[in-house]
């Protein structure tokens, strides 16, 4: 792989950029792989990357029904934070966040990780107590967060109306090292690195069946024919229920639409990510200048990647109330993604009832931030056949035992 750098660009400029090579290859699938990963979203690609990097397993195919990164990885609001309440969550999200810090260098692909800070507003006394609790837990979990005053909030975000007639801002949970990244670049950077390790990324190829013998997985049927494997990793987010169905088990999960929208680009006016959970809206500004906005999920099962307009409306009115100056700005585009929401709204990583078949799903509305951590933990699970410490508590068995990892305890939304 030729390295990317300013010098490389200068060199290429001289020949009108005709010499750049492909970022990733588009190979025909082989008959068999050691590991087949279904889903070339961030989590699938990161799983592949760490299988190669941490375990030297490179005879890997990543099978994608559409275009790589086109699932939720390509349509999320890019918030990265690790100020979770429960120990296992804080552990995996903080691992992910720390990997984001060096991702551009690790992948030699600028993913524009921007640790600009994330604040979660407390607008009721109850929320204040909830976030103070999180701050205490984070301190013991090694996640640096603090509860800040309304004045500090205003300093960080001058355009915010902290004295709204309905919900004054009483403070915020602030994570300074949290932020955003260029979502597509995360997928592309991993894809380039995986392809470079000799892995096959097979796009426009849909998995239509899971093959098994004696309770152990043997391969998959795809729209490009049968592909065999020793181990199978399903990393397909909103489609996890559908894949589980193919493999003959059911998941504690439902697929619903989550929507987002962007404004027209304007000059910088908000330098951090603001989440307002009481009124259901969050907002940041991309480096291109558009305000990136999201809110809550739709209330019904859906696979259309479209949502209902009233959720957009609720989100927008919350943000107009919070940031009055945006009233005359305009919505440029809205879209939806299909998120996989589990019974306790936390992810699932681990073994399945089918032998050598592993699952990674349930990241729901908040799994962009976890991509590297999840890939790390999933790779370990697949390579060793057993989850390691990062994934350990995220297994399916927790639903039988009632051992939930419930994050809604402290915060309403979980992006």
């Amino acid at each position, binding site marked *: 792989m030729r390295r990317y750098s300013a010098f490389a660009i200068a060199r290429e400029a001289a020949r009108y950029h005709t010499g750049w090579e492909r970022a990733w290859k588009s190979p025909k699938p082989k008959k068999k792989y050691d590991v087949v990963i279904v889903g070339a979203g961030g989590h699938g690609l990161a799983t592949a990357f760490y299988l190669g990097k941490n375990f030297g397993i490179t005879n890997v195919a990543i099978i994608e029904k559409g275009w790589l990164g086109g699932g939720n990885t390509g349509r999320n609001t890019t918030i990265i934070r690790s100020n979770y309440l429960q120990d296992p969550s804080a552990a995996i999200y903080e691992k992910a966040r720390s990997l984001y810090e060096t991702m551009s260098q690790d992948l030699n692909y600028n993913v524009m990780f921007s640790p600009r800070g994330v604040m979660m507003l407390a607008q009721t006394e109850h929320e204040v107590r909830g976030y103070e609790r999180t701050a205490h837990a984070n301190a013991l979990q090694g996640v640096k967060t603090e509860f800040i005053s309304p004045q500090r909030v205003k300093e960080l975000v001058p355009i915010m109306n902290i004295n709204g007639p*309905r919900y004054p801002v009483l403070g915020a949970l602030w994570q300074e090292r949290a932020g955003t990244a260029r979502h597509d670049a995360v997928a592309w950077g991993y894809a380039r690195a995986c392809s470079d390790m000799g892995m096959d990324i097979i796009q426009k190829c849909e998995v239509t069946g899971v093959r098994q013998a004696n309770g152990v997985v043997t391969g998959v049927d795809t729209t490009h024919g049968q592909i065999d494997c020793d181990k199978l990793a399903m990393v397909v987010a909103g489609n996890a229920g559908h894949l589980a169905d193919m493999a003959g088990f059911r998941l504690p999960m439902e697929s619903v639409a989550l929507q987002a929208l962007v404004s027209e680009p*304007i000059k910088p006016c908000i330098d951090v990510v603001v989440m307002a959970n009481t009124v259901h809206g969050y907002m940041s500004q991309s*480096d291109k200048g558009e305000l990136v906005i999201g809110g809550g999920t739709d209330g019904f099962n859906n696979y259309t990647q479209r949502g209902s307009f009233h959720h957009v409306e609720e989100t927008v009115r919350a943000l107009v109330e919070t940031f009055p100056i945006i*009233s005359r700005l*305009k919505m440029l585009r809205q879209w939806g993604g299909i998120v996989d929401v589990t019974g306790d709204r936390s992810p699932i990583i681990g073994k399945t009832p089918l032998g050598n078949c592993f699952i990674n799903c349930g990241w729901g509305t908040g799994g962009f931030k976890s991509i590297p951590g999840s890939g790390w933990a999933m790779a370990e699970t697949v390579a060793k056949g057993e989850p390691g410490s990062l994934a350990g508590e995220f297994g399916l068995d927790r639903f039988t035992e009632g051992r939930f990892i419930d994050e809604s305890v402290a915060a309403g939304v979980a992006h």
Partner: protein
Amino acid sequence: MSTRLAQGGRLIDRSKPKNFTFNGKRMKGYEGDTLAAALLGEDQMLMGRSFKYHRPRGVVASGAEEPNALVNLGQGERFEPNQRVTTTELFDGLTCTSQNHWPSLEFDVGVVNNYAARFLPAGFYYKTFMAPAAAWKHVFEPIIRKSAGLGQVPTEADADRYEHYYHHTDVVIIGGGVAGLASALAAGRSGAKVLVMEQTHHWGGRAAVDGGEIDGQSVDAWIDATLAELEGMENVTLRTRMMASGVYDHGYVLGYERVADHTPGDGRPRHRLWRIRTKQIVTATGAIERPLSFAGNDIPGVMLASAVRDYVVNWGVSIGDRTVVVTNNDDGYRTALTLKEAGLVVPVVLDARSEATGPLAEAARTAGIRVEPGRAIAKVHGGKRVTGVSICLQAGEGSALEEIKCDAVAMSGGWSPVVHMWSHCGGKLIWDEAQAHFRPDPNRAPTSHDGEAFVVTAGTASGAMSLAETLEDAYAAGKAAGKAAGGKAIRKAGPKADAEEAQPMAPVWIMPQGAGPQKRMKMWLDYQNDVKVSDVQLAAREGYESVEHTKRYTTLGMATDQGKLSNINGLAVLSDALGQEIPTTGTTTFRPPYTPISFGAIAGEARHEIFQPIRRTPMHQWHEDAGAYMEPVGHWRRPYCYAKPGETNEQAVNREVLNTRENLGLLDASTLGKLIVKGPDAGKFMDMMYTNMMSNLAVGKCRYGLMCSENGFLSDDGVVARIDEDTWLCHTTSGGADRIHAWMEEWLQTEWWDWKVYVANVTEQLAQVAVVGPNARKVLEKLNAQAGGGMDLSAEALPFMQWADGKIGAFDARAYRISFSGELSYEIAVPASQGRAFWDALLDAGEEFGVMPYGTECLHIMRAEKGFIMIGDETDGTVIPQDLGLNWAISKKKDDFLGKRAQQRSHMTDPERWKLVGLETLDGSVLPDGAYAVGEGNNVHGQRNMIGRVTSTYYSPTLKKGIAMGLVLHGPDRMGEVISFPTVDGSNTVIKARICDPVFYDKDGEKQNV
């Protein structure tokens, strides 16, 4: 030089001049002008700068598709960035400034990016700025951020108001061109209820500019006659200035009505967002002309041919004296002819087709215009405006044959139907080879709730290119929609026009077709985002093969115009680079809105005081008048405390606690949920809902009860009263009333529908006041003495945990002897209409007993002193009653109740679950909210082991020290042990607290049971 012609302009009224300013310069236009027309009329060609390279930008189009000419409009509380001048109606006093440049529009420092363009191809930032690691955040990102963005940021809140409007109809027709009007005729004649919406302020669309005859009349005359007929139809509603913003599932259409954008400050809502439910939608949205990709096609003065024509015909504005027309289809000649007719010069028409033989080409020749088939533009000359073009062979590599001086270029690359509204809900497209465009595939329409197609297309939006075909298609579409929506079949014939002959267009994606890389780097696809042909080719080369990858890698089509001009050209270039057919490449996804819509309109009326409903108790106003600090509890606002002048909230709370404990306190408890459960099976039902046994509660008695979710977690608590043999009254938490009511209904309707039980929520029927403190009985008895109420409130007649109905003073009341404070306490319910009077009466009568109202914080402290749990503090959705030592409230006799099975799972019975205890700090200080206790060592994640946490913590004014409750590992077995709570205030200290009984005050209940 662009200028206002002496004559012409079908949309303007020259008798009504309008003054406006651009970058502070005073200018003049006319009523009926768009801002674009007015600016051009004043020779303001340069209007802004592009996004990435800060290239000079002028207007290219005349409508919603405009990518370039965006301005900052208005000032102060009516300031709006990124306003498209082509869709802004001119009004007197309009002010605007150009965007994205520094220091000025004419001289922009950012233009260095233009000179460095070669080093800034698509995606360059993915390849660089990576070292050192911290540089992105601290160096590169800030620079990139500053130079990105477009318009300025508003600094003030919006002065205008907005509203919504729900409309139900049978047929919505989107677009008021001749197609929309013809469809409306047919749908209207069917008797269906029809709404026709047109985004501009005038009807008729393109056809009136293009000319022709309909039913023997001029297009303009036909439009007027048709409007008159439609206006006469009661079932037809016509609306201008209203854009269909999006089509959503199940026949939902958003109409964005710009009511008062052109009359700011006249008191009307600025925008009205129509939320329309319709059975059928006809998209008569017309087509958009495509630019051609030649070097320098972005220089101000290069415009769409149809736009050049529009400015002349609609607004009497010419773009230049000498306009070179370049085209790949017949329509370009219309512009040449129009210009010629207006007395302007067309030095040449360059027709990229090898022959130019159509009737329009002939007409041009006849008019004396030089026509050059097989020719292309090699390069446009000029910087901030066009000065000339070099001509070359379309078939070659671009060596110049001739240079022609001109001040404008009109380009036509063919037409693409506006398919957005068709596509939003899943309508599919087919590639039309002949017209080289995607058009709706009538066999794969979007479907609605009934599984049937609910969108049809009409006219040019279907791909019909001539007036005759447009009318025929549109009338048929209107007919079909009317019928599908339940209208009657119609026989009356639709409008007709004569068929015209045309020479087929020839797709031209790059001009000239053999242009080398140097030229391709100067061919703009996306004008706003500076995406060039070379960028798309680079994306393809680098493996970003999916059109979606190319879009995201190059930002093609992601600007504020959403690629209305660039998308098709871009994907044609991409297909060519990949060596595949255009349909294989496909389009990107069409998403609402069609053009950007204001956040204000989306938010509608919901702002300020009516942002969200605030629930108020009958005594709410009193609390506000008393200066209470109110806290949101669900949608309620409850008094947190009533600080007196000079008092802090904290002091007020302490005073309220002490006064209530020593004298008399009043709490507005009206927000507490009150549910009536009645019926022969009510007892059985109550036993399922509560963990306790409720069926055996004696009439007249009260019992504290717990409710759990099916998942076992404690979800609500409250006192239940048995009213009569088959009636119970359940109190819920303030936040819980609606939730628990719904919960009960859900079980009754969906699981035990054969049980005879009715539930009613009477929360708001009653105002409830907690009369608390040693003087509680006295004040009530005084009321009785004053007004002859007869209720016996003595300890004998109404002992603890009983209730009674009767009169207290002048009020019909129900009194409960229940206590959440540990004091002698009556909770008294009166009809809400008398709540305020009752409250006033209590305050009045209570004066001699030291009455003071108290708020929620005082309530919380008193309950904590008594060791009572609070839903939301001690519980958080993960806590089961067993964790809180509430086993006594969980019936062991019952086979089943909601949550019982869940509580048997292994993790729920795990002895390692944290359990409720009291906590008192060794130094008497108050433990911080949410603090965790640490144990020894670390867990598998390397995190500090935690052994407990604080669930509520207060300063107890009664005990004069901090008290707390918490959940602690093996807590109840560790009474007296001291555990450590690290602080997070930066002091790195640890607070030590002793585990104790959670009941801090009057453990034996001597005070409440009097």
